[in-house]
C-alpha cells in the first residue's frame, strides 16, 4: 500500500520535474526541476528493489552529471538576453503533443500487452552490489569493456572540442 502511494508520489514528482524541464524558459530552472525527476526516479528504483541502481542514480546521475551540467550553465553565465526568444513555444508544445500522441499510444498499448505483476521487495540481494557486479563481470564483460573505450573516446573528444591548448602547426 505504502509502495503504491510512494510510486504515485514519485511518479507525480518525476512527471512534474520533466514538465518543468520542458517548460521553464531558463535552463537553470529546467536543470533544477530535472534534478527533481532524477531523484524521484531513484526513489522508484528503490521501490523496484534495485539497490545498486538506486545508489548510482543518486550519486552519479543526480550528483555528478547534473552538477556538471549546472556548472557549465553557470560557467557560461547565461543572461536573459542570451536565451533564445522562443515566442512560438506554446504553439510548438501543442503541435508536439499532437504529433507525439500516436507514438505514446503505440508504446502504451505495447506495454499493456505485457503480463502484469506486483513489486513487492524481493530480498536475497536482488540488485545488490555483489550480485550485479558478478553478473556484470561474468555475463556482460564485453559491453563493460567497450564502455571503457567509449568513455575514452568521449574524453578525447571533449579535449579536442573544448580543450584550450594551442595546436602545433
Amino acid at each position, binding site marked *: 500500500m505504502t509502495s503504491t502511494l510512494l510510486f504515485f508520489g514519485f511518479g507525480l514528482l518525476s512527471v512534474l520535474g520533466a514538465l518543468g524541464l520542458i517548460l521553464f524558459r531558463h535552463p537553470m530552472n529546467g536543470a533544477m526541476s530535472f534534478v527533481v525527476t532524477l531523484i524521484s526516479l531513484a526513489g522508484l528504483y528503490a521501490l523496484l528493489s534495485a539497490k545498486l541502481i538506486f545508489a548510482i542514480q543518486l550519486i552519479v546521475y543526480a550528483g555528478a552529471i547534473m552538477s556538471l551540467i549546472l556548472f557549465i550553465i553557470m560557467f557560461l553565465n547565461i543572461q536573459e538576453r542570451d536565451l533564445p526568444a522562443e515566442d512560438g513555444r506554446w504553439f510548438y508544445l501543442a503541435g508536439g503533443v499532437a504529433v507525439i500522441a500516436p507514438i505514446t499510444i*503505440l*508504446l502504451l*498499448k*505495447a*506495454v499493456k*500487452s*505485457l503480463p502484469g505483476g506486483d513489486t513487492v521487495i524481493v530480498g536475497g540481494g536482488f540488485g545488490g552490489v555483489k550480485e550485479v557486479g558478478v553478473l556484470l563481470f561474468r*555475463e*556482460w*564483460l*564485453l*559491453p563493460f569493456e*567497450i*564502455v571503457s*573505450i*567509449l568513455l*575514452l*573516446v*568521449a574524453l*578525447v*573528444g571533449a*579535449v*579536442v*572540442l573544448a580543450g584550450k591548448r594551442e*595546436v*602545433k*602547426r
Partner: protein
Amino acid sequence: MHDLMVIIPLIVVGAGAILLMLLASFQTLSKEALSILTMGIFGFAFFVQLAVSNSGDITPFNDIFNGMMVANTFTKFAGLIVLACGFFSTITAQTYFTQNEEFVLEFYSLMLFAVCGMLLLTLAAELMTVFIAIEIMSLAVYTLVGYDRKSVVRSEAVLKYLMLGAFAGAFFVMGTVFIYAGAKSTTFGTIAGVIAENGLVRSPTMVVGAFFILVALFFKAAAFPFHAWVVDVYDGAPLPVTGFMATAVKTAVFAVIVNFLVMNSELRDSWITFLFYISVITMLAGNLIALGQDNLKRMLAASGIVHTGYLIIAVAAVNAQEFTGGAILFYLAAYAVSTLGLFAALSYLGGKEEKRVSFDDFKGLAKVRPYSAAALSIFLLSMAGIPPTAGFMGKFYVITSAIEADLIFLAIFGIFSSILSMWYYLRLIIVMYFREPEDQFAIAEITFAPIGTIILAFSVFALSFFPVVL
C-alpha cells in the same frame, strides 16, 4: 587461437587508437608521420582480416563474451570494407591537411577509434553492445567533424549531428527496452530463439522494439524521413571526414541492420512492406534533394541518401535461410570505392581551405587536368551505375536479388531512381568537360591522394570483373 585471430583486427585498431592518442599528447610526431602510422595500422588490420577465414558463425571467446560477438563471412567482408575505407580516408586526410592549416593531432586516433567502433558494430550480436559500439563510432565521428574549433560551420555540423544522433540513440535504447521486455534477453541468439518459439507478431512489445531499433539504425543510415541531417552534416564536415562518414559509417550500420534482421526470417519478412516504402521514398527524396544542390559535398550527401535506398532494397531482398549478404556487401564496396575515389580526388583538387566546392568551380577541369577529370568521371559513372564500373555490377546484383525475392516493383523503382540520378552525375561531367577552364587547379605539393585516386579508379573496374565478395 582462432578466436583471437578473429578479433585481432579489432584489438589492433583499438590499441593503435590509444597509442596514437598517447603519441598525440606528446606532440612530437609530425602529422605526416601520424598519417603513415595510421595507414600502417589499417593496412595491417586489413590483411589480418583478409587472412582469417571465418566461414560459418563463430563466436570468439564464447565463455567470456557469451555470444555477444559473432563473426562470419559477412562480418569479415564488412570489416574489410570498413578498414579499406579507413585506409583511403587516411590518405585523403593526409593530402587534405597539406592544403588546410587547421589540424589536431588526435585526428587519426579518433579515426582509429571510429573504425574500432565500426568493427565492433559488424561483430556485435547483442543490442546493448551494438548501442555502445554505435556510440563509440558516433562520438569519434562527432569529434572528427568538429575538430576545427575556428570554424562555425564545423561546430554547427557537430551540433546537428550530435543532437539528432543522441536523439536517435534514445530511440535505440527504448527499442532495446521493449525487446528485453519481450524476450527477457538482448542477445540476438536468444531473441531469435524466442521469436522462433512463439512468433513475433504475438508479442507486440517485440514488434515495437524492433521498430524503434530499425528507426534508430535508419537514422544512422540516413533513410527518409531521418535523412535531413545528412546533407548539412556532410556539408559542414571536413572533406576527408565526409568521405569517411559516407562510406565507413554506412557500411557498419548496414552490417548491423543485416545482422539484426537476418537473425530470424519471420523478423525480416514482417518488415518487408516497411522496408519497401522506406526505400522507395528514400530514393525519391534523395534524388530530389541532390537535384537542387550546387555544392558538390551536398550533392554527394544527397546521392548517399539514394544509395541508402538501394541498399534497403537489397536488405529487403536478403533471405535469412541461406544468407549471403553478397549483393549488399558488393554494393557497399562499389559505392565505397567510388565515393572514396571522389573524395580523394577532391581532397587535392579542392585547393586551400576547400575553396572549390561547387559545381562551377570545376569548370573545364578536363582541359587542365585531364587525368583527374577522367578519374572523377569514372567515379561518377560508377555511382550512376554505368558499365563496366563496379557501381553497375552492384546495381545489377541488387536488382537481380530484388527480382529473385519477387519484389518486382521495388526493382522497377530502383531503376527509375537511377534514371533520375543521371541528371546530377552527368552535370558534373558536363561541367568538367564541356565548359571552358577558369583557374589552373594548382596543387600545393606532391601527396598520397593522387596515387590513392588512381588505385581506386582501377579498382572500380577490377571490382566489377572480379566480384570477390560474391
